């Protein structure tokens, strides 16, 4: 009788063990299949974050960023004037193209005036540099981050729209084989519906700057807030930026 009981118990254990083995195999197989799928990504930053937030988070990640003035080439339509916000208002208006050294993480407010076909209209875009470039020594001014203020987008902002433009460095392995000339208008794509422009830029390369156009004209109440916290910048001589784009373009 004892022998029968032991055999029956061992048989039950064998069945349970077999079931367990199959269960482990099924779990492993399904796990491998799940591992092969694309994992959902949770993006730390979003294009709708307030100006300065993304750059500040970038500074917290560390790196040789603090204190570095990243050259940024700002280009407005021909005839327009660009001025940068300082503590006492805005700097003297420059020509339609300026080469400015900006710090990562800071928000720089511009004033664009004398816009063609927009007499009396002033637009106040902001530029936020969220990453820097690492050029060889002496070539930093030759390869600035280009910020384009197009006539179309300035007009959109004047009509009440809010334009966000995320500038990124193209990944050479994903770059389209499109011939480009130095100095021509920067190509851009519209962010897909429902997708964050920062996410789109991050997929195509490395976001380095965010341009936001569409700020309201400050009134008497918001004037102080509007001009507060103007970060330091460096104005470079644009004509001396080591090479004019057209100098060697063929």
């Amino acid at each position, binding site marked *: 009788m004892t022998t029968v009981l*032991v055999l029956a118990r*061992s048989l039950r*254990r064998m069945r349970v063990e077999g079931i367990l083995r199959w269960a482990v195999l099924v779990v*492993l197989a399904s796990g491998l299949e799940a591992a092969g799928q694309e994992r959902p990504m949770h993006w730390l930053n979003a294009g709708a974050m307030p100006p300065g937030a993304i750059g500040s988070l970038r500074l917290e990640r560390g790196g*040789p960023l603090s204190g*570095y003035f990243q050259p940024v080439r700002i280009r407005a339509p021909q005839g327009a004037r660009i001025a940068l916000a*300082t*503590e*006492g208002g805005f*700097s003297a208006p420059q020509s339609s193209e300026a080469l400015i*050294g900006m710090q990562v993480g800071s928000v720089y407010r511009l004033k664009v005036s004398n816009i063609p076909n927009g007499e009396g209209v002033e637009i106040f875009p902001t530029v936020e540099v969220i990453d820097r*470039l*690492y*050029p*060889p*020594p*002496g070539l*930093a*001014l*030759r*390869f600035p981050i280009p910020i*384009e203020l197009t006539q*179309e987008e300035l007009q*959109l902002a004047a009509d009440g*729209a809010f*334009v966000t*433009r*995320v*500038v990124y*460095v*193209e990944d*050479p*392995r994903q770059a*389209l*084989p*499109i*011939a*480009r000339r130095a100095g021509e208008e920067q*190509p*851009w*794509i*519209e*962010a897909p519906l429902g997708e964050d*422009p920062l996410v*789109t*830029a991050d997929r195509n*390369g490395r976001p*380095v700057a965010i341009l936001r156009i*569409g700020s309201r004209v400050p009134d008497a109440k918001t004037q102080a807030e509007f001009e507060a916290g*103007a970060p330091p910048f*460096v*104005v470079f*001589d644009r004509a*001396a930026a*080591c*090479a*004019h784009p057209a100098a*060697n*373009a*063929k």
Partner: protein
Amino acid sequence: MSDTQDTASIAFQYEHLPIWWRCMLVAAATIILCSCSSPAMRSRLAADQSLVHSTTDVALDSEQDGGRTAKAPSPCPLPAGKGYAGCSPLSGSGTPNGPMPEAESANCEAAIAIDPYGPLPGPSDEYLCDGGDFGTPAGVKADRTIVGLEQEDAVGEYTAADGRVFVTPSNRVCIYAPRFAAVRRVVQVVANEQPVFVNAALEATSAARASNALPPISEKQRQGVSVDMGQRPPSLFRQRQQAGGLENLQAAMDAFTSLGAYANLQIIRTGEVSQAEKARLERSMQSAIALTGVQAPQVLFGVKMAQAEVGVRQPGMIYQANGPEHPKLRLLKLASCGSALPGEEIEFTLRFDNVGDQVIDKVTIADNLSTRFDYVPGSAKSSVDADLVTRENDEGSLILRWEIKHAVKPGAGGILRFQVKVR
């Protein structure tokens, strides 16, 4: 009694998992854990690029402007009648932040040191690289077709006297040429109207706004036009084929005497390493050494293991096979510029040498250009008799393939040159 003991032992055996089952579990867990490691990406190469000395920095002569701004002096005056001053004469380097060459320093005397951190290795997305053999190792099929030649790869293949086929990658050349693009989002501000109107009115307002926003969106089609502009008609490629025939008629002297300053080195002209040129070739050698560990150039042909020889005496990569005879091919690549803006042209020079002790035959040099390199038709030159064949790769650029017509004797070599335009 004995029956009871046997039954108990069987039961004891089944209470514990068998040894093969435990081993399988351990193996499965190991595989799962090991699968967490990501493959070597291109961006990791940048981290290996060593720091180099900075040039003589010119202090920022800034003058305060209202306490907030500083005006910088002219960083790089352009000499009259010359091209841009940032074009370094020698760039056979995978170390992008290398020291500024002498010529560049001479033209760019007033370079501004705006970076308090000095030259730093950065992400590789700012560089266009060409050369080497990354990703899938290149190989040769029986019909002499090169497989595994991915974008940016440049290899040479040849047949030894005993029939063995070898593949030799060149060193890697990186050029600083970042390209920018943008992603745009236009949002119409209608939120202040939403709580005021009923739904029907809101829809009407939104539709009116949408109609206003539609025209600029439709103008995006200029992107499509630019894509079409980038496509080259096949007729241009045919012309290039014809130009290849004419190039073979060029005397070898032409290629030798018209070498650019960046490639006018003894190792390019004759294949011999000169100690006097060691400093100028330092960047190329650093590149070769730094990249050797990354790409693990262990190539197996037949039953012989090919071993990479990369030392401080010889730039470029040399593969050696153990055997009674030692076929060796050295492939060295140089670029005329260390940086480039879109639209500028760069010349590449490939120097191949038979540094082995036997004649090698059917030497073929193949270069799969990067997406942003546009081959300049008719710019290819060769100091030896070679057929240039071009075909499109999958990325929208070209694969250049030189088939050297004659066998290369020990100590002999040749120079191949071509120009590309940076897209």
